[in-house]
């Protein structure tokens, strides 16, 4: 396990090599470094995992690499911490990450900035691994901000188009709202517990906090705000659909598989605090439920293939939050892993379609691609089946486990369960609507399928993994609190399997056989428009925050505070002009002034002496 430092180290070295050699490396060399560093990191992860599971090995492994800084009594070190939870995340980041890098090496081949792309991607993976492996919250925050910066850089990768720059700034600023709350939460946590070391927090939180008291509730709320911003949940979810402006492998890696799930990881990592704040945990469940429903409804009528997938990502992360909230901790992480597999698969397949159609993303202009693009078609079918949670794909195991756990929740249980099942039903409709619109029906375009060893193998590997991942047991082990025990009634399982099938049937009737047209949203224009724009959140925030801010800026465009210094400047300038009048170059005037002043002073002196 002593090779652990290599895992975040290798991508970082790759990043530095690519940056320092910018413009000097050939494409093949840049590809070798960019993809190779992640692939080796994945192999090291496997090696570490074998060590970790060897009989007699410790349950956790902590190593301090070097001290980072000391401030007062706070000592922060670059330390790595490995347990079952971080190991599962390591598998996702390096495993799925290396497959996406592999795919991206072909996807981006024509791009003039090939080397810059891989430099950013490697930096991202390094930051994400730092986040996952950190043994204290300060280092975790460093990785947290690092992935935010890389997300910004990669969304705006094609910066020549101002729209991409806007999307990048939007993502960065909206997540910043959450990050600020997160930072304040860290300060409070340090004040209360006197440490930011993760294993110590797990021990100290149950001892020092009173269940449901103000401090843990406040801290958990602030941490939740950070997680909500990063994971694109209500109400800070508006950046994710726009983040699709980046290259498709970026969407697959950052905005589906890894970074957006960092919020889930954060809550799972600090579960000791959240367990002391049951109200906040309930809020987590509600946020997840609302996000999964709202984004599901929004995904129903999007026209951009990547936006459908973005809303479905939000919806699936909603499930993870939902699971955390109802106490299904390890189920949530399990869903995180399976979702990383099948959503990366869906995004990469979408990337292949987009590339085949010469960067066309509008699904209304696609159709009948089933025959022309057989491999992407089957991969997309598998990905959608996982997304819809059809048995026996991996999505079925994770989603079913979440729904079962939600039923056990006291008081709200069945309601949560009903919301989750409704979400699954909508998921089935929108994912198969997408599938049917793109791959069935009349052929509308002439695709140009990208072939080669970079395109099909990663897709096929991911598709296989997505299918079989459900049979494996999560290695998180006993890190997370156990889920509610017991079994829900049989009929709930039947409904949870049946409703998605019904959704697929509806999508088939409407979009392939063109029956039941009354169900099409086109008949309810206003509702369609409302959902299309993501329930008007963008407009609401524009009215609530942007408009007042810009109008204030308009009022203050001449800078009211600046008035005082400007007044001083104008006063001195006025006095300057006044006095420079005296300087007229007439020597005799100077003398006369001097003489008269001397006389006045003398007169004053004499008159005072006289008294």
């Amino acid at each position, binding site marked *: 396990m002593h090779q652990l430092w290599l895992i975040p180290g290798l991508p970082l070295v790759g990043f530095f090599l690519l940056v320092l050699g910018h413009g000097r490396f050939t494409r093949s060399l840049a590809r070798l470094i960019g993809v190779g560093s992640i692939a080796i990191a994945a192999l090291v992860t496997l090696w570490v995992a074998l060590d970790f599971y060897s009989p007699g090995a410790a349950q956790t492994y902590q190593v301090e690499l070097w001290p980072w800084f000391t401030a007062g009594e706070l000592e922060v070190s670059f330390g790595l911490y490995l347990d079952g939870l971080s190991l599962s995340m390591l598998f996702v980041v390096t495993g799925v990450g290396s497959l996406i890098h592999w795919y991206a090496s072909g996807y981006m081949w024509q791009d003039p900035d090939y080397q810059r792309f891989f430099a950013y991607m490697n930096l991202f993976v390094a930051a994400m691994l730092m986040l996952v492996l950190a043994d204290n919250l300060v280092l975790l925050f460093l990785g947290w901000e690092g992935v935010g910066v890389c997300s910004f850089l990669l969304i705006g990768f094609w910066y020549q188009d101002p729209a991409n720059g806007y999307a990048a700034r939007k993502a960065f600023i909206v997540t910043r709202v959450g990050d600020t709350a997160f930072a304040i939460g860290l300060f409070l946590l340090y004040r209360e517990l006197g440490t930011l070391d993760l294993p110590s927090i797990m021990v100290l939180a149950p001892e020092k906090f009173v269940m449901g008291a103000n401090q843990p509730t406040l801290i958990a709320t602030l941490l939740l705000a950070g997680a909500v911003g990063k994971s694109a949940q209500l109400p800070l979810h508006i950046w994710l659909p726009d983040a699709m402006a980046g290259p498709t492998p970026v969407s697959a890696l950052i905005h589906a598989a890894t970074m957006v799930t960092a919020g889930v990881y954060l809550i799972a990592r600090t579960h000791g605090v959240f367990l002391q704040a049951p109200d906040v945990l309930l809020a987590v469940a509600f946020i997840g439920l609302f996000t999964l429903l709202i984004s599901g409804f929004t995904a129903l009528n999007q026209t951009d293939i990547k936006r459908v997938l973005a809303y479905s990502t939000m919806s699936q992360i909603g499930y993870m939050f939902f699971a955390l909230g109802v106490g299904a901790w390890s189920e949530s992480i399990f869903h995180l892993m399976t979702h990383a597999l099948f959503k990366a698969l869906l995004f990469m397949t979408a990337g292949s379609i987009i590339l085949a159609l010469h960067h066309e993303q509008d699904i209304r202009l696609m159709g009948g691609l089933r025959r022309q693009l057989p491999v992407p078609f089957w991969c997309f079918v598998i990905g959608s089946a996982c997304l819809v949670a059809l048995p026996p794909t991996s999505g079925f195991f994770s989603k079913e486990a979440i729904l079962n756990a939600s039923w056990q929740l006291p008081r709200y249980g069945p309601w949560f369960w009903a919301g989750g099942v409704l979400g699954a039903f909508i998921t089935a409709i929108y994912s198969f609507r997408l599938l049917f619109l793109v791959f069935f029906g009349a052929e509308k375009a002439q695709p140009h399928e990208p072939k080669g060893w970079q395109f099909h193998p990663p897709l096929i590997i991911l598709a296989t993994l997505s299918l079989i991942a459900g049979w494996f047991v999560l290695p998180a082990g006993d890190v997370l609190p156990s889920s509610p025990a017991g079994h829900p009634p049989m009929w709930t399982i039947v409904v949870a399997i049946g409703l998605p099938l019904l959704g697929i049937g509806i999508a088939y009737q409407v979009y392939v056989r063109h029956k039941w047209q009354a169900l099409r949203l086109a008949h309810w224009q206003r509702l369609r428009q409302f959902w299309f724009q993501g329930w008007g959140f963008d407009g609401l925030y524009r009215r609530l925050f942007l408009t007042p801010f810009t109008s204030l800026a308009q009022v203050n465009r001449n800078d009211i505070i600046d008035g005082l210094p400007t007044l001083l400047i104008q006063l001195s300038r006025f006095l300057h002009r006044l*006095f*420079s*009048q*005296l*300087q*007229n*170059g*007439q*020597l*005799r005037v100077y*003398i*006369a002034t001097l*003489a008269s002043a001397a006389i006045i002073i003398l007169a004053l002196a004499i008159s005072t002496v006289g008294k």
Partner: protein
Amino acid sequence: MDNQYIDHAIILAGILFCLGLVGVMVRRNLLFMMISIEVMLNASALAFIAAGSAWDQAEGQIMFLAVITLGAAEVAVGLGLTLLLFRHHNSVDVDQLNKLRG
């Protein structure tokens, strides 16, 4: 010198000083202005001598020497400047030499 003569000496010095001042103010020729300044300097020097003699103090004469030295230095610099001004502008009229206005 007795004390009663100091008034006369101070009055004489005052008259000389005023004459010099008026000279500086009314003349336009730089040379004459310098002569008038010299008159003013010497008027103050006379006042020092008279005061020193009246109170039997040696400082009066020391100040006189200082004033003479000052005057010599002033003339040396002033004449040099006047010469240069004449070479550049072909004139020593201060009303025309007014380029140094603000």
